[in-house]
């Protein structure tokens, strides 16, 4: 189960978040936990450098691209390595949409497209497409194969 995907800027403000089967009152804890992980580790990290964390049986993999922090949280079959796949799909798609590793401004400019892309990458806690070309086709409402 992919529990959460969260984007934050480098000062720890949440820009975009998706939760699945996380009760409302726990989301706050996740937010602050993830943001704390980011402040502790992501300052000075390279682009696409992968970080890992875990909490009980939940795994967290996160990275930074440009000014944006990206966190993925999963459990069960979505362990660290699957989350690496998810994260890779997300970052490559975001870079595809923003043309490069995004600054916060560019990210917010392309916010809508990023949201559309995320909807193709996962939905209801299940990973869908990992290939950025497929994601791009689908966000433009093109069929996968034609």
């Amino acid at each position, binding site marked *: 189960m992919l529990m959460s995907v969260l984007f934050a800027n480098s000062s720890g403000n949440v820009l975009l978040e998706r939760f699945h089967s996380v009760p409302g009152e726990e989301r706050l*804890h996740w937010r*602050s936990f993830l943001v704390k992980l980011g402040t502790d*580790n992501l300052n000075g990290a390279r682009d696409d450098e992968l970080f890992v964390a875990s909490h009980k049986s939940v795994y967290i993999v996160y990275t930074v691209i440009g000014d944006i922090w990206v966190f993925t949280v999963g459990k069960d079959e979505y362990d660290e390595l699957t989350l*690496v*796949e998810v994260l890779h799909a997300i970052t490559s798609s975001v870079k595809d949409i923003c043309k490069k590793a995004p600054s916060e401004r560019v990210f917010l400019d392309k916010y809508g497209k990023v949201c559309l892309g995320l909807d193709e990458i996962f939905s209801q806690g299940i990973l869908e497409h990992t290939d950025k070309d497929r994601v791009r086709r689908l966000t433009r409402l093109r069929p*996968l*194969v034609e």
Partner: protein
Amino acid sequence: MSNTDIVSKLYEIVFGILDKVADAGKVRKKKGMFGRQSVDKESALRSNLQYVALSALRRLPLDQGNPAFLHRAVQGIACADPVGVRHALAMVSEMAVRDPYGVAMAVGKLSLAGGALQEVLHIQDVMSRMYLARLCYILSRARGIDERMDLRSQFTTLLYQLLLDPSERVCFEAITCILGKFDSHESSEERAAGWALLTSAILKFPDPSAQPSKDSSATQGSDGSTASNDSVAKFPKDRPAPRPRRPQPLIRLVMRRLESALRSHLRPVLHAAMRIVQEIGKSRAAAFALGMVINEDSVPENLIENGDIIKADSEVDGGDPAAEVSRTKVVPLPSSLAANSRESIASMLSNLVEGVRTTVACECFYVRAAAIKAMMWMQSPEESVEELKSTIAGELSDPLWPASLLNEILLTLHARFKATPEMAIILLDVSRLFATKAPGKIDSDVLQLLWKTCLIGCGPSGKHTALEAVTVVLDLPPPAPDALEVSVLKDHSSTSDPKAAVALQRLTQAAVWFLGENANYAAAEYAWESKTPPGTALMMLDGDKMVAAASSRNPTLAGALTRLQRCAFSGSWEVRIVAAQALITIAIRSGEPYRLQVYEFLRALAKGGVQEKLKEAYVSNGEDQGASGTGLSSIIAPMLQVLDEMYKAQDQLIKDMRQHDNAKQEWSDDELRRLYENHERLLDLVSLFCFVPRSKYLPLGPTSAGLLNIYRNRHHIDATTGFNDPAVATGIADLQVSTVTRIEYPPIQIDAAVPSPSDGLVDGIWSSNLAGVDRVNAYLGGVGTDAPEVEDDTATTRASVSYDDMWAKTLLEASDGEDADEQLSGSSSPESTASFETSVSSQFGSSRYPSLFGNTTSFGQNTRWEEEHRPGTRFGKFSGELTSLAEDQPSYVESSPANAPLHGTHWQSGIGNQEPLHSPSSEVPSRPSDVQYPEEARAGKALYEFTAGGDDELNLTAGEDLEIEYEVDGWYFVRKKRPGRDGKLSGLVPVLYVTS
């Protein structure tokens, strides 16, 4: 239309689509203009539709018994779209859990050479291959499949082949499957069988002539995964295709793979590899525990599979130097491994552990924690524990470790103990490191539970060591304020130091309490099973001789007493109180001369004489010592009184007995009654301080047993209930005919019945009533998706964090706590658990999320609200405690003396009284005026339509009936009678939108 109707309608639609497109097969390509390839429109459309339909089907609830569902899912494995294949495999593997045989039959055809399952090996999608591993594992162990050996071997071969997968994810999934870990419900038999399989099974490659390109493309499949970029193990792929691949023992493949993963620079890969090593350790421990004999010194080539000795292969291996050379060339292995292809399992494992040990140097705490856990699991009972200890000690001296991770490691110790109880001593040794190196960070309840379980698990010989591990906590110096500043960042030390001091104090209290409660058990010394012959006690009045005699007879108990005595006058105030309580517990439970020793000590303590004597050794902690010098006289006075009464009554009894003997006079009924009443009164008094088995305990000394038995039999008084029995109180018991089974005091036993640490007893611990039990059980059960708690106050959180969220959270916690209380109140005093809950929340409430509120103390006040809504737990407690404890006693009476230490009330119960005095949250008692505390739900009505602006808000339709639960900051938290259109039942709405 009901939900089921809708779902069945949806199934119908999806099946309808699949019916039209499922036989699409591969997307056909055709040559277009100018030589460009284009795809066939028709087949592309079909493939797209099939993918979409499978994706939809995956999100519908699994229809287990429906053959159409299974058929469509299995058909989907041949889908042209890789994501479609993934969904199909996910569904099939989920269904296979429930009905392995049916699924195996349905999938059987696909698993044959050239079938769709084989093709999945080539699909780029990592998750499809992962689900394939799962599916193969489940199907290969299906019960009914035994008569189809061909099918089973197909599935196992596929599973083993996945060990060579370029992606770590797939390979690790295959390893965990082989190890028998499928979900959290696996049994230790399965795990043990998994270890046996891993060490003995051999991967035989399918005949390459049937599938010429299979192996090479399987290993070459360069998918876009980052995980496989650098760390792909380069297994022999450049070998000419016609040459049959040499069968490989699984254990070697796995070890190589793990070693290459351990050299990865990617943290997730390292973390995952550590987890896999843990799993290997778990399965190995399970095999040990079940007594499975696996010769780890054997060389894998010579192992046996299905009764055939793979002799030919090992000959090929040995006799073909060319193959040997080519292998060492392509496989990047440490020289030790590559040079010696015939190494034993044990040496492979030690190589692996060495790799794990180097991983501890990783800078990521989570990876390090996983590595330590892996080392704990790989530790076997026979090996030396020194390396593990030194690694952990080195790690723990790093002050930056987050507390939550350390506690998880501590919980791993629990899990390790559960797997191999023989390791109790080793584990206690390790836990001692936690207590000494990081006392401020670990959860004292979890540590205490570990002490307790290990104490019981370590057998009679290890009890002394077990108690030593606890007492070491008492020797810890208080955390010096300067110590941390030197080593770490300034802001860290300034905040963590007082916290560490408080936590250390809690830990010390816990240790002292534990010592008092369990010393008698560990020393196997009970007053009611005393080795001292009756009557000798009063003759040994010389204090020095007494101590010498006591320590020579029972060094464990004497050692515990010495530590406690030191704590009773040199610890902080709270520790001294607990120490005094621990001492009286030991005094009451032990026979002479220990009782007298404690009596003398307490008397001296009350008078302050000890302090005078030890003035030069006394370290003041800045508290007012009070007139007595120790400030304990008010606590000690009632204890001394009880002991005084006991000794007085014993003296009186001896005097009376002599008189009767001299006068050759029988004891009259009246005299006996007075004696018995005295006995009962003392028993009640003693029970105020600690638990003693009422049916065995003799406050009047062992000599009274005979006389009491006479009176009891005459009046048919049950030993366990005494005068509390209504039949006795009303005199009905006297009317009974004396054919009732006579309960007598047992004769004084000379042999101390030490319980053997049987499984039943160990299991009993887990159900006993302690705060740590829930946490440990939750950990062992593998649950824990709840949100983590941010413990440090350096976190910057986003501004939108609202008070309402926190409020909802505290409400939830409060109700959880009450539920827990209801569950827990079964065996021990409910009073103690209640006071534990509140004291914990009041202690940590204010420090939990300090950053969210800056300087406000609102969260702390929420927890105060919890306290106030527990009538009598806190304020009425001091006076009520004695009586309530006495009332609780009847629930203990059935327990045997061996279980006595397990049933003791929680140590917090004793010191809960003074808790509010030093808990940080209670220092600011004022509340914010705009928060109204919920008394009961009020009825209300929605005035206007309201659209929720956030997750925690609730949509309203004008005129709706509501229940108002509480008000906060101009918002009502309301509950609807029935869920609204959005399905939400409760949430926040503005006050003005609701009439109340």
